[in-house]
């Protein structure tokens, strides 16, 4: 993105002329707003940004961004985005997906895009429900979830998106939540800066079919005790009075209250490069633990698109150009007179 420094854009320039069609009160509005707020500061020309999505409420996202966009089919956005990014490494390619789109029908593509470390910025809106098809349970819905398709409760164990990303050794794994606008902006910025596949889980309230799925996390009264805001190099402290923390007991994390001989120095320090820590954080869930939010893990790895393009440049240089006649004449040829 060569012209990066030269551009100064405003939020408005990223707003498309399409009416936003999400339900009033949907968490998606906030995510759209944060993205549009953050983008001007990146200094990347609009025309070099592409949003690709699949199917679902979240996947309407590209229509509302005044960039290039492709609203594709259910679950396939990472595959389509991979083809685009590999052949057009000059573009900044974002993928917007949801828990149904990215983890159910498109789980395979998501997994492989992360594994290959294609330089895609993947935002997964997790509302733990199917919204667009009007309220069936999703792969992240809790066991026993009562929905239209599971009147007596689902028998499915939910999937942990962060662990999936970790399992394929994704190079950027983060989690944020729709109502924490500042936090969201920070995480999106970090994702944009990362070279490689970024996986950002955004907890998002579907106020129509799964209202309050993250209530304890967003409720003003309780959120200080239920959110664990991660900061690289800082101890894991949380609670209204910053008096609680996470300590390691052997290989098991535990929640402790500071005081009575337990100090901040006893607590786990967040290290974004530590895979073991990332694993422990990914598994922490209510009610026993607060929900970790922030950048869970960042590592450096060569990107798939860079490696592929390197191979092509290399081959072009070594061959000294593309001679079609030479190619056609390759192998055993003979002349008939």
């Amino acid at each position: 993105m060569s012209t990066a420094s030269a551009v100064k854009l405003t939020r408005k320039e990223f707003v498309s002329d399409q009416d936003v069609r999400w339900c009033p009160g949907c968490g998606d509005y906030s995510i759209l707003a944060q993205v549009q707020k953050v983008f001007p500061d990146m200094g990347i020309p609009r025309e070099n940004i592409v949003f690709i999505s699949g199917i679902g409420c979240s996947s309407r996202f590209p229509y509302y961004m005044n960039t290039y966009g492709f609203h594709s089919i259910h679950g396939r956005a990472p595959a389509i985005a991979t083809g685009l990014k590999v052949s057009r490494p000059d573009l900044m390619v974002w993928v917007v997906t949801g828990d149904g789109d990215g983890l159910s029908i498109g789980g395979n593509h998501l997994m492989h895009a992360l594994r290959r470390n294609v330089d895609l910025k993947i935002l997964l809106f997790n509302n733990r429900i199917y919204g667009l098809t009007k309220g069936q349970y999703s792969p992240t819905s809790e066991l026993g979830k009562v929905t239209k398709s599971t009147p007596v409760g689902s028998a499915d164990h939910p999937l942990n998106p962060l662990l999936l990303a970790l399992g394929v050794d994704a190079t950027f794994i983060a989690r944020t939540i729709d109502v924490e606008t500042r936090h969201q902006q920070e995480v999106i910025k970090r994702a944009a800066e990362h070279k490689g596949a970024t996986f950002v889980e955004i907890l998002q309230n579907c106020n129509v079919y799964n209202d309050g799925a993250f209530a304890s996390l967003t409720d003003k009264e309780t959120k200080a005790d239920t959110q664990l805001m991660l900061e690289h190099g800082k101890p894991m402290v949380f609670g209204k009075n910053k008096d609680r923390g996470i300590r390691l007991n052997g290989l098991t994390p535990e929640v402790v209250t500071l005081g009575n001989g337990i100090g901040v120095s006893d607590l786990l320090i967040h290290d974004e490069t530590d895979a073991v820590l990332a694993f422990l954080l990914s598994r922490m869930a209510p009610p026993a633990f607060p929900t970790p939010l922030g950048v869970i893990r960042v590592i450096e790895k060569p990107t798939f698109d860079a490696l592929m393009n390197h191979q092509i440049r290399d081959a072009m240089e070594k061959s000294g150009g593309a001679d079609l006649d030479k190619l056609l004449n390759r192998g055993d040829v003979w002349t008939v007179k």
Partner: protein
Amino acid sequence: MATNPVGAPLQKTVQERENVVIRFAGDSGDGMQVTGMQFTTESVFAGNDIGTLPDFPAEIRAPTGTLYGVSAFQVNFSSKNVFTPGDDLDALVVMNPAALKTNLADLKQNGILILDKVEFNEPNLKKAEYTKSPLDDGSLDKYQTYQVEITKLTTLALKDMNLPNRSVMRSRNFFALGVVSWLFTRPIEPTLNWIKERFKRTPEVMEANTRALKAGYNMGENTEIFASSYEIKPAQIAPGVYRNITGNTATALGFVAAAQKAGLPLFLGSYPITPASDVLHDLSTLKNFNVYTFQAEDEIAGVGSALGAAFGGAIGITTTSGPGMNLKAETVGLAAAVELPLIITDIQRAGPSTGMPTKPEQADLLQSLYGRHGEAPLPVIAASSPGDCFYAAFEAVRIAVKYMTPVILLTDGYLANASEPWLLPRAADLPDFKVEFRTDPQGFFPYLRDENTLARPWVRPGTPGLEHRIGGLEKDYLTGNISYAPNNHEQMVRVRYRKMAKITQEIPPTKVEGPERGKLLVIGWGSTYGSIAAGVKDFQGQGKAVSQVHLRYLNPLPPDLGEVISRFDKVLVPEMNMGQLLRVLRAEYLVDAVGLNKIQGRPFKVSEITAKIARMLEE
């Protein structure tokens, strides 16, 4: 076997033949494909026209000696024009009893049968389900049977090399090749050179194969086992530079040539599947032509990534076979809706399901024409010979780009692996179709169509001022914004059909091979071209009013086809399916066409075509 007393040259006769069909058959580990391919190369150097048919089992390493582990390679070489790999065999080389059992039925009476005697032992006979040795029961009496000691003589030739038995056995095929090379007066130099190149990193193997080949050749010359050899004079072949080419390689080259002519990078998104994988393999070696090959996680990602690349301004291609086509269908529907160029290549095989993955069939025609959700018409183009795959692939890309549409390219497992001498085109003679992307924001709408082609503009992301969104939702006729307006939808469905109709302007007048009007018109498509051509020419030679039309464009159909059909009393449609083109022609032209259907995973024999034509002429 009598050996040649030292110094006394044998007087051998040389018989001339117009054409010979030979098949090499053995265990899948016996190297029959290599043997067949090398014999083909030798025949090409001998100046013959050729047609080949590889036939191998789906199992990678089937248990040795079993009936289902037999691998074969058939070559038809001639001093006349060759259209097919040949029907019945003039010569058969078998490396074991299983190969004899599965192939003998195709050998002509009094045909040449070469076998390796020592292989006809108790365990091998049992594995081939023989209760009695065919060498002893007189069942081979009606053939010219030559029991050649292939194994023994190979071992002897390599004796002082002290190789393990396994390695020696691997050179047997070259001994056999040497024998038949002599028998049919083929030059062995091309094979000697090939061995040198192929095994340059394993000098021992190089030496062993070289010796085996020469030993086989010398055995033919110096022993009395064969009383005469055969000569097949060079064929009259159009002048030019040739190479032997398989359909899959030709397909890959056609894509590269087209991408070069378009001035764009080529992106292949593909998932390995028989018999399509070789296109992926071939293209992966051509990175210097700005070719991206992406081995995707599945068929869907293969086509998805190709569509993503097309959105970015590359020539997006995916390759697969029947089952993969099903998996890709949803994405192909999306490609039809967003009107981006994309080439979907179906190298058809016998189905349904896994079916017979290494065997050809033409049963994906209806799937290609209609196998999508909603109204999603697409151009469908078929190749008719291995070399023709080049031009069909090239044309598929050209149409896709010019009309901004996905195009389905059909070949099949026979074309994929069969080979023929191919007159090399010169790059400069191929049509240029340099792509110009839209860059002008003035008056731009994503679905503003070109009047002549109805193509929408192709815009590369990265172009300032043209930021826009596309997607699978129905869109406004002009702006491309989401629209559910009833009349707009009908207008969009109709314009997508009209675009297909526009493509008829690309189709040259239908070529009738034979009389312009007459008794019988044989219409075919795809790999049946050779068998039909040979059959039809038979009747034309007898002065019968039988003609052939072979279709490259299955959708849209040639605009003059109805008129051509009306000039004939009867229409015959041979297909390797249950009558798919037949259905289309009957529906389209209300013609009482008749089908000839073979669904055995094998190409038509010419005799099968001629028998049917004869019956229809009598009726």
